[in-house]
C-alpha cells in the first residue's frame, strides 16, 4: 500500500503575546497513513488531537517537523511548507475536513452549501445540482430541509450536511474531527454506516473519536495522544 500521509516529528507551540505565555500543544508527533486506511486518534480533551488535524489542514501554522502528503497534483510535498495557494488547491480538490461544528455560510441553504463545494471545483451549475442532490439523498437529509438554512438544523442533521459537503468533492484524504460528538446513538450509527461505506469506496480517512467502542472494528489502526504527545503503544 502506498503511503498517503506521513507526519514526522511535528511540534507546535502557541505564543500568546499579551499574556506573555507559550503553550506547547504538540510535541514530536509521528503518524503514518496508507492509502485506503482508516486511522483513528483517541485521547482526552486537550491532548492535541484537533491541533494535529488543524496543522495538516494548515488552519494552524506548523512550526517544526514535516507533514508529507502524496498529492495527485503536486506529487510528494510537505504540507508544512506548502504555499498558501497550493494549500487552497488541495483543500478544493484533495483534502476534506469535517469538524464537529458546521461552518455555516450565512443566507445559504443546505442545497446551496453542498452545491457551492462542487461549483468551487469549476463544474457547471447542472452538474453541481446533480451531485449535491445525490449527496443529500445519500446522507438521508430530509428533503424538506434541503432549501432551509442549516442554522436551524439539529446536531445530527448539521453533521450529515457537513459530511455531505466534504464528500461531494470526493477527496482523497478525509479528516474527521470528532464527527460523532454530541450525537444520539441512532445518529451515531448512521455516521458509522457512512464511514464504513466511504471505507469500502476506498477513501483514506483519519478520524478523532472520543468513544473507543465506536472506533472498534472500524479503524485499521489507532493512535492515542496524551498531553500533546503520542502514547507509546499502538493498538
Amino acid at each position: 500500500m502506498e503511503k498517503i500521509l506521513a507526519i514526522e516529528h511535528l511540534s507546535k507551540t502557541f505564543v500568546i503575546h499579551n499574556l506573555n505565555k507559550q503553550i506547547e500543544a504538540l510535541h514530536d508527533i509521528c503518524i503514518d497513513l496508507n492509502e485506503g486506511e482508516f486511522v483513528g486518534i483517541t485521547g482526552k480533551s486537550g491532548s492535541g488531537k484537533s491541533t494535529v488535524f488543524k496543522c495538516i489542514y494548515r488552519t494552524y501554522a506548523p512550526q517544526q517537523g514535516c507533514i508529507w502528503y502524496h498529492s495527485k497534483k503536486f506529487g510528494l510535498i510537505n504540507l508544512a511548507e506548502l504555499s498558501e495557494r497550493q494549500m487552497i488547491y488541495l483543500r478544493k480538490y484533495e483534502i476534506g475536513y469535517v469538524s464537529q461544528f458546521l461552518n455555516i455560510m450565512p443566507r445559504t441553504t443546505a442545497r446551496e452549501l453542498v452545491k457551492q463545494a462542487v461549483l468551487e471545483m469549476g463544474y457547471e451549475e447542472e452538474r453541481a445540482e446533480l451531485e449535491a442532490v445525490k449527496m443529500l439523498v445519500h446522507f438521508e437529509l430530509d428533503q424538506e430541509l434541503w432549501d432551509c438554512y442549516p442554522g436551524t438544523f439539529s446536531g445530527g442533521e448539521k453533521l450529515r450536511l457537513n459530511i455531505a459537503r466534504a464528500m461531494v468533492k470526493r477527496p482523497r484524504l478525509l479528516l474527521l474531527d470528532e464527527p460523532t460528538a454530541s450525537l444520539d446513538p441512532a445518529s451515531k450509527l448512521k455516521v458509522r454506516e457512512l464511514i464504513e461505506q466511504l471505507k469500502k469506496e476506498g477513501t483514506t480517512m483519519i478520524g478523532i473519536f472520543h468513544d473507543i467502542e465506536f472506533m472498534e472494528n472500524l479503524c485499521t489502526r489507532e493512535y492515542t495522544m496524551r498531553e500533546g504527545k503520542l502514547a507509546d503503544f499502538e493498538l
Partner: protein
Amino acid sequence: MTEFELPVLSVSNFNKQFGKGCPSCKDSNEDSLKKNYCPVCGTVYACQDITFEVYAGEILGVVGESGSGKSTLMQCLYFDQEVSSGEAYISSYKDGKRDVFAESSQQKRYIRNHMMGKVYQNPLWGLRINFTSIGNIAEKLIAAGNRHVGKMEARGKELLEHVNIPIYRMKEAPKNFSGGMQQRVQIAKALSNNPPLLLLDEVTTGLDLSVQASVLDLIKTIQRELQITVIIVSHDLGVIRMLADRTMVMLDGRIIEQGLTDQILEDPQHDYTQHLVQSLL
C-alpha cells in the same frame, strides 16, 4: 518548488510616503518613526515595502486598523495616487512584463479603464452622483472604448439587474438612492468593463446589516460566476472570514502577517493580529 500558477497582479517593494522625508527618517529606520510618522519632518510613511501577489479567481483580504495604509494601497493600485517607489505587474497587461507604476498617465488610464474596477467606501467618490445610474455605467464603458449606445444601454441594464437595481429607476441619479443602492450602482459600474481585477475598499462600512448582507452576497456571486480576482479591504473580520481565501494584515504601513484566512483568524502569529482577533465580538 516551482509555482503552479502565475499571479494576476504582483506588487513588489511598494512604498508610498506623504512628505519629503528628512535625514532622520530617510533610511526608513523604524526606530526614528513614531508608528509611521516622522516626528522631525512630519513625513507619513503610509505604505512601506509592500510585496504581495494575487492570483486568478481569488479573493485577497486586507485588514488592519484605521491609518494602517490599506486605503492608500488601494488608491495607488488604482492610480488615484502616485507611488513613491516600487513595482507592479499585471499579467494581462503587456504579458506582465511592464511595471505599471512606471507607465505614462495615459497608459495608466488605459489599464484602469480596461483591466480594473474599483468600489470606494463612499459612493460619492466612485459615482457621479447627479448623473443617471445608467449614465454612470456608460461613463465607464465609454472610457473603455465603447461607442455603441444601444449596446451600452443593454449592458447597463444587464448590470443593474444583476445588482438588483430596478430597471425602471435606471434613469434616476444615485443621489436619490439609499446608501446600499448607491453602493450597488457603484459595483455595477466597476464591473461594467469586465475587469479581471476588482478593488473593493470598505464597501460594506456604514451599511445596515441586511443591506450589508445583500452586498456581500452579490460580491460572492459575481466573483464566482465571473471568476474575477478581488482585493477587498475591510476592518470587519466577519466580512473577511466570509469572502477572503487569503488575508494580509497591515499595521503602520507594513504587512505584518499574511496567510490563509482561517489561519490568520485561528492561529494569528503577530502580537497585533492576536489583539485584532481577540477583539472580535
